[in-house]
């Protein structure tokens, strides 16, 4: 396994007590694999990504569990060690390309400094490679545009630059947090296709957070569905989309129009996700679940084998049961 997250718990100390933003999150990503992560707003998707690259906003902190990269723990590394991993072994792509690039530096300079932070390259070599990367991500006239500033590019072009920045030190994993949400619908598909192609060429794994089930269906190998700081279902993309085992996932998928049309937002399931300080005992989905029964309200289901996926739902506790 390239990345293993085991029983991850992230807490936010606040004035009114400690909030648990992530609770018992476990999953893994194989080399070259694309893991899609979906779930309602506030489910903890970004938090999971931030924990992996070690950039949780204080006072948020990892309060339990482990994160392993190729078998080595990275969640408790000293800052200087973690810095060598960021960019070099785990890259990141953020949501809004308009704010992700430093407005005062040319894109060439940002590429060069990133590569030189991790690879032993002379200025000339780094610049040459930077031009190569810009060509790779489809910036026309890369050799001239390399000295341009971010504001001289459109949003879609800037996200291409961000992708080049995330890939330029050749990481094994990229955490992409809604990389197309801020873009025009017309260019979202191009960016996703680009990301997918480059990742395949570089054998880079991707953790792809998105609200767009269409993107997941086309891009991901596996999907993790998050709800109230937990993963409630995880499995191969076809199975999760076609044969969801968790009632919440089933609700999500039912709200998707046929695959050839794009969906903007997830979920028309009645009710809303509980706030972090008011997660019900037992199954967190129980207040909204159409299949809720006795046991759901008292004891909390962990992920368990369910059909071809794993789901955190008591319906699958007995052999042969299904949602």
């Amino acid at each position: 396994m390239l990345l293993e997250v085991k029983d991850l718990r992230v807490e936010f100390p606040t004035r009114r007590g400690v909030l648990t933003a992530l609770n018992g999150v476990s999953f893994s990503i194989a080399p070259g694999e694309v893991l899609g992560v979906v779930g309602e707003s506030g489910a903890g998707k970004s938090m999971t990504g931030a924990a992996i690259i070690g950039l949780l906003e204080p006072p948020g902190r990892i309060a339990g569990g482990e994160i392993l990269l190729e078998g080595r723990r990275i969640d408790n590394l000293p800052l200087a060690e973690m810095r060598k991993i960021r960019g070099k072994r785990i890259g990141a792509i953020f949501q809004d390309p308009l704010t992700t690039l430093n407005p005062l530096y040319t894109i060439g300079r940002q590429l060069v400094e990133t590569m030189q932070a991790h690879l032993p390259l002379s200025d000339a070599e780094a610049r040459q490679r930077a031009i190569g990367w810009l060509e790779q991500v489809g910036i026309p006239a890369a050799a001239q545009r390399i000295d341009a500033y971010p504001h001289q590019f459109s949003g879609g072009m800037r996200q291409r630059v961000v992708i080049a920045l995330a890939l330029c030190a050749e990481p094994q994993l990229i955490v992409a947090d809604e990389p197309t949400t801020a873009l025009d619908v017309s260019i979202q598909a191009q960016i996703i296709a680009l990301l997918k192609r480059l990742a395949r060429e570089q054998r880079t794994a991707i953790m792809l957070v998105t609200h767009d089930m269409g993107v997941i269906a086309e891009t991901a190998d596996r999907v993790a569905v998050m709800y109230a700081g937990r993963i409630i279902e995880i499995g191969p993309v076809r199975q999760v989309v076609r044969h969801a085992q968790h009632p919440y996932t089933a609700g999500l998928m039912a709200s998707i129009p046929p695959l050839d049309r794009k969906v903007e937002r997830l979920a028309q399931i009645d009710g809303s996700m509980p706030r972090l300080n008011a997660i019900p005992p037992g199954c967190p989905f129980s207040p909204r679940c159409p299949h809720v029964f006795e046991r759901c309200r008292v004891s909390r289901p962990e992920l368990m084998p369910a059909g071809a996926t794993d789901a955190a739902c008591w319906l699958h506790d007995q052999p042969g049961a299904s949602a």
Partner: protein
Amino acid sequence: MVAFVISRLLQALPVLLVVALISFALFTFVGDPVAAMLSQDASAADRENLVRLLGLDQPWYVQFWKFISNAVQGEFGLSYRLSRPVSSLIAERAPATLELAFCAAAMTLCIGVPLGIFTGIYKDSWISRLLLTVSLVGVSLPIFVLGMLLILVFAVQLGWLPSFGRGETVQIGWWSSGLLTASGLKALILPAITLAVFQLTLITRLVRAEMLEVLRTDYIKFARARGLSNRSINFGHALKNTLVPVITIAGLQLGGIIAFAIVTETVFQWPGMGFLFIQSVGAADIPVMAAYLLLISLVFVVINLAVDLLYYAVDPRLRAQR
């Protein structure tokens, strides 16, 4: 670029005109120059003569035009109080004010900006908290109180530094400098500190606030996610982005330092333009006051222009628009 400078200067013109109008209005509404210049026993004919000589019988816009065209040539007439040309009075006093302002500004920037960066980056360390608490005192302490406290301690009680005046000066052409003699430098210390403290604490807090703001931005987070070193993030990416607003405020502050010099110069009887201005106010010496007002507004215009040019150098987004 040249067009940019010219357009900025044109934009400044109305400001200067308004200030000129106010200065001009001083002549009309404050005091009576004719009465001031005539002796007690002058006749009505003498008075009429003088009025005509001074052009006071002309319509106001003709007088205003004359005032402006004289001002452009640095001609502000005679001081009522000292009966000497205002232009040479100001030229004599300007070096003292400028040297004082320059030292205070240098202190402000060389101490205030690093402190702001430090307290921004290490926002939770106890040193930062201490510095911020102290800076609160600096912001709220009136200048004249600070000046007098310093005089009390370092001049009166310890006797280390002089409490007033400029010490010995050296004449270089028309410029009289206190920076080249020991007594001149000693005399400069207390007034410069007095003048700098307020601006210094202000700029520390401003740089800190800007730094905190910038450190929260996505591009800084992304720079961290790219694995850049803390040094290059803090002193490259973050600092450069705080510069734009800091340049504005620093420019305004430099103007403020020259204007606030009035109080400091008065407390330390520093022979600069501010002190001259206060003395002129006391004597209703309108020509000096008018000249001083115009000069200060000109200083602000020039500083604003410099600020704009610096922006231009720092921020590529502005360059693109022109």
